[in-house]
């Protein structure tokens, strides 16, 4: 009788161990490893910064943001003032009075190209022909199903060979450095202002590269 019970017991034990393993395997493979919670944390106060991070909420300011805009009329370090207003007359004046202050070196041009590919090519196309990826037909398949995405209106081509006119007069390929800089700073028509994305030096590097594209 005793033998019998133990034999049964061993079998039962084995079965329960197997079952426990199977359960553990199933539980641990549940989900795709993504979670809405941060899980267990130890001494959270060592993780949180004492000073404010730029993207953190901040009750000390009326708009509750740490990242404040510089006070009006001040010029941040590394920036210089752009003494031209946002109007067609000032655009023309910038075109007449401004010249690219940077030397036409290989380094500046290479930086200009890299910046153009990052900040401009998405609309203007990698060669400035106005055929960037967001101006072309494209579709996506995600949790909302398969659908086409809206096209952004393609900008006119800079290239001389395309001969597109500018809506502010003249050919796109004849735009002067000052005009291009003014447009980067304030934006125009469908293009938004890109002053907050590029420093003055970077803007002039981009202008240098655009002027290379105009020759094509």
């Amino acid at each position: 009788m005793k033998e019998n019970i133990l034999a049964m017991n061993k079998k039962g034990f084995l079965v329960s161990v197997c079952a426990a393993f199977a359960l553990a395997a199933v539980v641990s493979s549940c989900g795709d490893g993504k979670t809405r919670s941060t899980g267990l944390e130890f001494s959270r106060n060592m993780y949180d910064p004492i000073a404010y991070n730029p993207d953190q909420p901040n009750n000390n300011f009326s708009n509750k943001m740490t990242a404040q805009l510089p006070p009006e009329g001040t010029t941040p370090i590394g920036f210089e003032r752009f003494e031209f207003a946002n109007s067609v007359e000032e655009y023309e004046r910038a075109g007449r009075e401004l010249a690219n202050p940077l030397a036409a070196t290989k380094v500046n041009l290479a930086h200009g190209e890299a910046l153009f590919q990052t900040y401009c090519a998405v609309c203007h196309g990698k060669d400035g022909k106005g055929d960037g990826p967001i101006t072309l037909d494209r579709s996506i398949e995600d949790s909302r199903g398969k659908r086409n995405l809206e096209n952004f209106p393609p900008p006119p081509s800079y290239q001389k060979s395309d001969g597109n006119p500018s809506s502010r007069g003249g050919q796109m390929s004849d735009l002067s450095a000052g005009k291009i800089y003014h447009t980067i700073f304030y934006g125009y028509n469908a293009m938004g202002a890109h002053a907050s994305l590029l420093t003055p030096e970077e803007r002039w590097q981009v202008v240098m590269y655009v002027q290379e594209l105009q020759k094509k």
Partner: protein
Amino acid sequence: MRNISSVLGKLAKVVSVGLMLLFAVTMSHAQDAANGAALFKANACQSCHAVGKELTGPDLAGLAERRDEGWIIKWIHNPQGMVDSGDPIAVELKSKYPTMMAAYANLSDDDIRDIIAYVKAEEVKNAEKQTAAAAGGAEGGGGSSDATTLMILGMVIIAVLAVIIIVVLNRVIKSLEKVMESNRAAIEAAQAKNEEYAENRLAKFAKAFLRNKKLVGFAVLGLVALLAVAGWNQMWNVGVHTGYQPVQPIKFSHQVHAGVNQIECQYCHGGAFKSKNASIPSANVCMNCHNTVTASDHYEGEISPEIAKIYKAVDYNPETKEYGKNTRPIEWVRIHNLPDFAYFNHSQHVTVAGIECQTCHGPIETMEEVYQYSPLTMKWCVDCHRDTEVNADNAYYDQLIEAHEKLKKGEKMTAAMIGGLECGKCHY
């Protein structure tokens, strides 16, 4: 017989001539529109105009009904001249749209007629699309109403079944109670016996188990091992947020923006080039595209509710295209939380080392909703730093080698010469 064949022959002739004429007409029409489409693209008309949507310039839908052909040709050849000559429509357009259209004197009258044909063809295409969408919508609506009737029917059936089951069970219980009433004594005796037996079995099993010391030891060991493994794993994951995917205030999809649209990561996260933080873009960066892109195709002509959240944040009125003063921040939830006692600088990794964003952040361009891909533990950092070869093509190393050369030659080198006067060395 002869009569019939001649009649048939005539008929065939008429039909074939008619068909040829029809073919010619459709061909010439198609050519018009196709040439118009090519011209529309080549002259960058689409930069400012669309059919069915107002962009920088007015919506071209209904152009042919609105204006006569002569006026359109004159306008395209010299818009400013028409404004100057005091044409009332031109003056009104000038006052309504801030941008003056460029003159296209190079386009011939026929070219312009082709473009008008293209605009008309686009109108027809749009109308077809709309009817198709409406039909699709009706179908979808029908489908959903079918689904609701099916659901209601199912629920009614379930309710009826439930009532039937309750009634049947009640009857069974009643009849069982009657049986128990009649056999009470026998049942009680059997119950007592059963309890005794069960107790006996359990007790015997426990005794046998406890007597077998090996088995007890093994069971305890197994339990301890299990707990230890679980505890060990749990402890390693304290403060590790791999897979953390918080709900964000706007359903922004990196799959759409970085994947399909191929917008460079740094277009929005430009801080990764030159600062410690990769920087969350301010809403003006969103507006560079979303001033025109409203995804209204997918919301029956309304602005997408997610894009409307940006407009609310920057206080933008899409009707008047003007910004107000009542802005409010978008409170994104930070996913990657590095403890404050660890310093990490994006620019050092992105600009100096040239590491791809995906190396640490995973396949961001396929993520509809972003989650933390890497553990961000010290071991993870150290493992990568052990294997990564330094990109020594860098001015820093030139200076370092220069300093070494000087030391070798026995030249004098002061602290100031190796950065000892930098403010940050003492004040931080």
